[in-house]
């Protein structure tokens, strides 16, 4: 079955049809927790892309020698190694970003989108396909977080990536958008809108 899907589709499906945070609803914790600022969304998204692509490549490369009974342990060890590297890298070169992402970088280890793609895809497909799939999923995840971060930062702080877009002289920021409640409201709205668009595309 996999041989029939085109390589382009392996990449594209993560962006819209199987989008991790809008369709699969996987990896919701960072999606809700760190999207109060666009910079956090970009930082988190990049870390996820790095971890998912390298883990997918590594695991699909050794998929034939991993004993079935201990495969989850092997996945976790490999994912954890890449996550630790990403965490150290951010702490070394982007200390402010690292501070504002806090424990959510180490928590990528247990992010279900990563283990989910590995178990469902990388463990059964070639290195090339796995990397394309991972890249698509990672990008899709990042785009979802970016949209969410944009809505929340613009409405909640009147800024975008730290630049003022809604001038404080006439716009009073709606504080709730940078608080947890605003995350749920934004996520719910985003998912509804994406379902509505999908429904229209299906001609319903």
């Amino acid at each position, binding site marked *: 079955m996999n041989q029939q899907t085109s390589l382009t589709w392996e990449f594209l499906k993560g962006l819209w049809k199987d989008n991790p945070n809008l369709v699969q609803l996987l990896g919701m914790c960072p999606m809700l927790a760190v999207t109060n600022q666009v910079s956090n969304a970009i930082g988190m998204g990049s870390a996820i892309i790095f971890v998912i692509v390298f883990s997918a490549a590594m695991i699909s490369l050794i998929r034939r*020698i991993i004993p079935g*009974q*201990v495969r989850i342990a092997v996945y976790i060890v490999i994912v954890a190694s890449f996550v630790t590297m990403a965490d150290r*890298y951010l*702490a070394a070169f982007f200390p402010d970003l690292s*501070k504002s992402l806090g424990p959510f970088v180490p928590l990528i280890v247990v992010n279900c989108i990563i283990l989910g793609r590995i178990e469902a895809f990388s463990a059964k497909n070639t290195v090339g396909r796995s990397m394309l799939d991972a890249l698509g999923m990672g990008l899709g995840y990042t785009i979802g977080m970016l949209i969410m971060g944009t809505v929340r930062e613009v409405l*909640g702080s009147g800024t975008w990536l730290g630049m003022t877009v809604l001038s404080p002289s006439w716009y009073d920021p709606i504080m709730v958008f940078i608080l947890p409640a605003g995350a749920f409201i934004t996520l719910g709205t985003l998912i509804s809108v994406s379902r509505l668009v999908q429904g229209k595309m299906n001609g319903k």
Partner: protein
Amino acid sequence: MKPTPRIIVVLTLISALSAGLVTVFAIYTQPYIERNAKATLNQAVGEVLVGIDSFTVVSEEETLRIYQGKDKAGKLVGYAVYAVGSGFQDKIALIFGVSPDFSHLLALTILDQKDTPGLGAKITEQEPFLQFWPGRTLSRPIVFVKPPKEKSSLADNEVNAISGATISSRSVVGIVNQAVARAKAKVGAKS
């Protein structure tokens, strides 16, 4: 399920390889991370002890760190005290400067807090909160007042609380008072 030799060999190999990779990367990033921590500390101490040229560590504990700052001539400018305590949502980490004889406070800066944006988080801002701290006497505990008074009519141990964020204001006052007492005892014992 019986552990077969194959499982043991594969798991060991993968774990060893991963550990090796992480170790190499950790060694490579270590100096950068240390440099960042140092820069953060330098900046924080410099903010609350204006005009210092160098500082040395007096005591370092998890929730209380004391630094001694000296100017170019080697004269003692004061002590910088770093303290951590409970805030409204999470821990508040702050640093403040005190005069060498612990008679008054020089300046206060909030380093880390997760209190409510727009309310408690205002403890990090000069205008509603921090501007009232420099010069407060330490002969009596600092107290907060609400509703806010004119700056000139505040007693020498009073600071204004933030409207709508009494808990955050009270937390900061509590952390500072406690840290002053502890730091005074520590410094007194050493000299």
